[in-house]
């Protein structure tokens, strides 16, 4: 009987404590700055082109084959009258967010620091009606960093 009373005492003390849950859609938890959502591509503001040269390193490193990369000759290269030193540049890039397992290996594999894990956009709230809508193409991948809307930690 003593034990039962003790259990009831514990629950009653919890009754008097403050609830620990939040009303979720109204109040969001602040994501930590190391937060690791889906990979995005970074934008070289000084040359107005992506950092990515389409070298296939991330595509090869990806354990789940969620990336497809196609490279092209850079029209903005110095030899062509442009400003950039990149001979090759990314032509098309797809990441299938439905397949990505957010393992961070593509970021480690990249030699140009052109890809990073997003930490502002809460990837866990991605929901679409068609699975194909989760396949992101190059403009979508670049949009966030191009507009400057990203936390510093990602790029550093």
């Amino acid at each position: 009987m003593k034990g039962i009373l003790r259990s009831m005492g514990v629950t009653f003390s919890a009754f008097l404590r403050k609830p620990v849950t939040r009303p979720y859609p109204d109040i969001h938890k602040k994501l930590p700055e190391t937060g690791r959502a889906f990979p995005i591509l970074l934008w070289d503001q000084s040359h107005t082109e992506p950092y990515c040269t389409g070298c296939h390193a991330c595509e090869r490193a990806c354990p789940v084959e969620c990336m497809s990369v196609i490279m092209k000759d850079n029209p903005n290269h110095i030899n062509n009258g442009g400003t950039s030193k990149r001979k090759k540049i990314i032509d098309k890039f797809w990441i299938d967010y439905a397949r990505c397992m957010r393992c961070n290996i593509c970021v480690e594999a990249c030699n140009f620091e052109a890809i990073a894990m997003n930490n502002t956009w809460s990837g866990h709230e991605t929901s679409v009606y068609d699975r194909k809508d989760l396949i992101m193409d190059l403009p979508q991948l670049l949009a966030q960093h191009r507009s400057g809307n990203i936390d510093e930690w990602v790029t550093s």
Partner: protein
Amino acid sequence: MTDIKKEIETQEILVNMGPQHPSTHGVFRMVLSIDGELITDLTAHIGYLHRGAEKLCETMDYRQGIGFMDRTEYLANFNAELSYVMAVEKLMNMEIPERAQWIRMILVELNRLSSHFMFVGAFGVDCGVFGTPFLYSFRERERLIDLFEEITGDRMMYAFFRAGGLAWDVPVNFESRVEEVLLSSEQGIKDMDGLLTQNEIFLARTKQIGKIDAIDAIDWGMSGPSLRASGVDYDIRKAEPYLFYDQIDFDVITGKNGDVFDRYFVRLQEMRESIKIIKQCLKHLNPGKTLAEGASRNLRTPPGEVYIRTEAPRGEYGIYLVSNGENRPYRLKIRSAGFSNLQALKDMVVGSYIADAVVILGSIDIVLGEVDR
């Protein structure tokens, strides 16, 4: 006088418990044949979560495999990663920076805490408390997972350990955050203890139920808290120390009877030991490197084979790695604790009541991702 002990003729019926059942802890199916409320036979069916992790890892290089370890043992991811990473390091004969080792130890023990919280909560619900232990333990587990998220960036599939150290260093406020979380965990353990351990109905439901003695438990190859509850003093952290467990002072908790209560109580005490270990580890934490020098991105191991076992929350998590000199395993075998522990279920369940079957299954704390791989 008539014979009052005359048996009434009864009919055995088969009850299909699972794969969709609230207390099979995943997609586990057991076919119970019952006579009234008594269980006379049990057939276990596993494999509903079989994803072929071993075969998949054989097609991937060593770093890519880490993510798959997370997905086999999804309640103690750090422990699973540790076994795998240690196997690769052993083949490579790598020297790991000291700081990385200590951080690994802290994370592994924190993960043990969170896994045991999960166990105690789910176990309380199996016993029939309306959600309370589950919510209390999840309250604490949430804080632990928040901490993991701050460190690794992910809440569940961390992919944080690398062969040679860690993917990156922990945040600056790591130590103070760990202490903060430990403080709340202690409160959580106290709550669970008060809620369950002395409750008479809980004792009546768990004591003398699902007993397995030491000899049987060893014969079935059980490990971890389930084995220690039977009174076997076997903890890989003590028997074959890895990381820096030989420099740390902690006790191996053993039970006496190997019943359900002991399996619960051993885990509860182990949580207290884990807190003790983490507190000692924090003192050893010095600044330094977290990734070894030779840890290149695409590792190529010399040919050879290695069997690494570590003490995961559920028991021995072994990785048997055979390499033929390529950058990927030739054969990878995951020896999961749940797989061996679950085999012994039949011995424990037959002869008890239906309500006990649920409690016994809860007490051996299986993770189906680890059992099926």
